[in-house]
């Protein structure tokens, strides 16, 4: 079955530190890739997405992600985190053959940024 794996369950950083969150998916075909952020008590908000083209995509709030097809990865990065980035981050994938548009989510990574 198709799956999405996020390696880090909880990451703690100090402000201004660099961030990289890992995401891998298990499917050899063409997929669409997303990163969503969920601030405490809030709904999922789209950070960035990759459908095709340049594998380095830029999103909101200074986030970017790189799609590496050979590694089935779509890691999220930010050069310098802020306290306001404290949230849960979900990697999600759709486009699996014959699976419609439903998103399959990773387990999520909780990011805590210390001021």
């Amino acid at each position, binding site marked *: 079955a198709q799956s999405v794996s996020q390696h880090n369950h909880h990451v703690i950083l100090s402000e201004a530190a660099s961030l990289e969150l890992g995401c891998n998916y298990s499917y050899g075909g063409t997929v*669409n890739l*997303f990163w*969503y952020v969920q601030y405490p008590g*809030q*709904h*999922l*908000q*789209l950070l960035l*997405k990759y*459908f095709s083209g340049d594998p380095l995509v830029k999103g909101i709030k200074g986030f970017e992600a790189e799609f590496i097809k050979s590694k089935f990865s779509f890691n999220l990065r930010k050069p310098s985190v802020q306290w306001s980035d404290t949230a849960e981050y*979900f990697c999600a994938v*759709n*486009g699996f053959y014959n*699976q*419609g*548009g*439903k*998103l*399959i*989510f*990773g*387990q*999520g990574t909780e990011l805590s940024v210390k001021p």
Partner: protein
Amino acid sequence: AAGVIQSPRHLIKEKRETATLKCYPIPRHDTVYWYQQGPGQDPQFLISFYEKMQSDKGSIPDRFSAQQFSDYHSELNMSSLELGDSALYFCASSSSGLAGGLDTQYFGPGTRLTVL
């Protein structure tokens, strides 16, 4: 810009009661998805609709049913509620026209259901 609207935002029910959750998609979005997010869990796909027809079904209990109406809003009906149904229920909408029918999903604020 208009977003996905869900109502109610909070719902408290007793075991064995029924609940109806509503979702109003972004204007001109024709596809609606329902997801369930348990405490500390990732969202799990329940069911989706495209142009008022069920397009996909995930791990949705038989006690749950859903439909999409002519104005594209959707309702998730939950009967014989159990304690384990306590969760955040998200609705997401998308437009099927782009990306071969797999356009970006935009999420609503969710309905937090508590079953006592």
